[in-house]
């Protein structure tokens, strides 16, 4: 007899992502599925539009990482113009991406996962939010809010707007950085530095107590994919795409324009989110993880002194290749420090303040691929245009999609570990959500259920009768 558990973040009410578990007779999990239920159709409705509109349109895919789409789209536009943007434009784009990494990682760590980490997975659900943190751990909440604000202000000081600026364009950026704004970022950088320094210390003190989570929240070998510099170092905006395995072996290094030769996408009938895989390894064995964990696993060094020291410590604590998805949290903190240090390097670079920030050109190519590291993983835009620059084909390979299979496996592992028969406790359900949350899925790139996913769980027997049922969220 096969039983089925449906964990449904508000079936009829919100329902942008859902989980189902199929159980065997002995109550063990036979299969676990994470369903993404949102679909917006950008690849179709962008056809016929000009590639010059794409940075502004595609940034509306996601309000959490709009900068990723903005920059990736502008880079794809560089390819269609066949130009290299001026050095200042490249540095300024990097600065904006670093600001975004900080704000997005802060949101993930403090606002969304902070309640689980600071208040416990079994804390009363009414407290498990940024507002619960404000009440119970105000200093931690304030640090998170300030750090996120700092990252958002970096974006605003460059692009004039925190969310959905149209500042990056094919060929460069619209405006240089003013000296006043450069000074403002440098001044606030000190606060950001102090916050990430004390947060890293606190997290490392906490980590030994989180061993059960480290072992059960997606602890498995897999492939990893990220950008690296030509020397094999940490990279978030240019460089080469690298695929490596859990033993540290490099399987492939390629230019983004070759992505379709190496990466395929599968479709399953039960999710709107596709399933990318590394073609050489096949489907589904070719599943790979992207994001902070992948970037730290694949890079040789980060390139700044304090982040490099943290990277060494990270490897001592988590393994030469960290294989637990729970370590995404730790990797995120190391990357915030890396971003803080790199911001200082770029802001002190005299080339950054050059007034020439835009390469002018007409269309010179009919096809181009752009790549950038979104905070949650590698993002690809692929455009084909006619001779007027109107799009005939658009393909977007989004970070969260690439973590789709590993998220399935993570849910499976957590269920195996914590589910005991038909007893569905609130804490168990929250752990399932927390396993997904560790990946920081930007589900608005595909669905909406970020942060707390309200759940409706049904344990159903093969005769269709509901054996056990629990609501977490929704309008019932």
């Amino acid at each position, binding site marked *: 007899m096969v039983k089925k558990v449906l964990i449904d973040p508000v079936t009829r009410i919100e*329902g942008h992502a*859902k989980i189902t578990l199929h159980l065997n007779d002995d109550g063990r999990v036979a299969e676990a599925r994470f369903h993404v239920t949102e679909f917006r159709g950008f690849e*179709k*409705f962008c056809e016929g539009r000009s590639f010059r509109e794409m940075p502004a349109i595609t940034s509306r895919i996601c*309000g959490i990482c709009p900068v990723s789409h903005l920059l990736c789209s502008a880079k794809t536009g560089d390819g269609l113009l066949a130009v290299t943007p001026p050095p200042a434009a490249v540095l300024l784009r990097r600065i904006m991406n670093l600001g975004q990494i900080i704000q997005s990682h802060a949101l993930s760590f403090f606002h969304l996962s902070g309640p689980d980490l600071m208040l416990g997975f079994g804390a009363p659900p009414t407290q498990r939010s*940024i507002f619960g943190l404000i009440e119970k751990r105000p200093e931690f909440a304030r640090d998170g809010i300030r750090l996120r604000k700092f990252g958002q202000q970096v974006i605003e000081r460059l692009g004039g707007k925190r969310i959905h600026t149209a500042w990056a364009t094919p060929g460069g950026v619209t405006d240089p950085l003013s000296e006043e704004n450069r000074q403002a970022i440098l001044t606030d950088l000190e606060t950001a530095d102090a916050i990430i320094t004390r947060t890293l210390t606190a997290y490392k003190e906490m980590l030994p107590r989180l061993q059960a989570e480290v072992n059960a929240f997606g602890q498995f070998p897999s492939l990893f994919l990220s950008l690296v510099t030509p020397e094999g170092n940490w990279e978030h905006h240019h460089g080469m795409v690298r695929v490596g395995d859990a033993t540290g072996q490099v399987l492939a290094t390629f230019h983004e324009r070759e992505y379709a030769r190496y990466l395929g996408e599968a*479709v399953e009938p*039960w999710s*709107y989110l596709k399933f990318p895989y590394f073609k050489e390894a096949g489907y589904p064995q070719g599943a790979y993880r992207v994001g902070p964990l992948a970037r730290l696993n694949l890079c040789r060094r980060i390139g700044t002194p304090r982040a490099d020291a943290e990277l060494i410590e990270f490897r001592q604590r988590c393994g030469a290749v960290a294989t637990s998805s729970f370590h995404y949290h730790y990797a995120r903190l190391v990357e915030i420090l890396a971003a803080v240090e790199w911001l200082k390097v770029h802001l002190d670079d005299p080339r950054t303040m050059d007034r020439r920030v835009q390469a002018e050109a007409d269309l010179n190519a009919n096809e181009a691929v752009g790549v950038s590291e979104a905070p949650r993983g590698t993002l690809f835009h692929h455009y084909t245009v006619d001779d007027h620059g109107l799009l005939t084909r658009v393909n977007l390979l989004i970070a969260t999609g690439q973590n789709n299979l590993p998220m399935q496996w993570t849910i499976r592992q957590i269920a195996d570990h914590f589910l005991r028969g038909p007893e569905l406790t609130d804490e168990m359900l929250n752990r399932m959500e927390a396993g997904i949350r560790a990946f920081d899925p930007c589900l608005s790139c595909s669905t909406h259920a970020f942060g707390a996913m309200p759940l409706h769980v049904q344990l159903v027997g093969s005769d269709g009768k509901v054996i056990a049922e629990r609501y977490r969220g929704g*309008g019932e």
Partner: protein
Amino acid sequence: MSSTRPRLATAWLGGCSGCHMSFLDLDERLFDLAAAADVLFSPVVDAKTIPPEIDITLIEGAVANEDNLELLKHLRERSRFLIAFGDCAVTGNVTALRNLAGGPMLVLARSYRDESNLQPQIPTELPVIPPLVDRVVPIHQVVQVDFHMPGCPPHPDLIWYCVTELLAGRVPNLTGKWKFG
């Protein structure tokens, strides 16, 4: 949390979450908000159920699928003031560009049935996957809306003004304070 405190809800339909991010861009004012009201139902809190009575509900996004439709109707029934929060909720905006591409099946086919995919097919496992509505619509085409707050996203200062005015029992006067985009 006392039941006499004002109750807020926020919801996210077919949008990009940018309006919610702009809400979080209230930054330190989130402390003031927490002191003045309870945010009971929202993607950013562990909402248990939609509370039976809500004072102010902010709706981000347009209506793009059946789940959006149902959530919107539920929230309307239970909310004193329902606010169309951002351009997608007000006009359909980018989410409604899908309408120009000619119906849900065509749009789905491009993404999923394309021969570049392995196992090309349109995901259909109902009811786990909610069907798309034929036309994406702004929320006022489905329910009565009390205020429209445009912006893509609305500026945090505008969000703060509207919420604090409503909490103070006043009608926000948006004249000259808003813009689209």
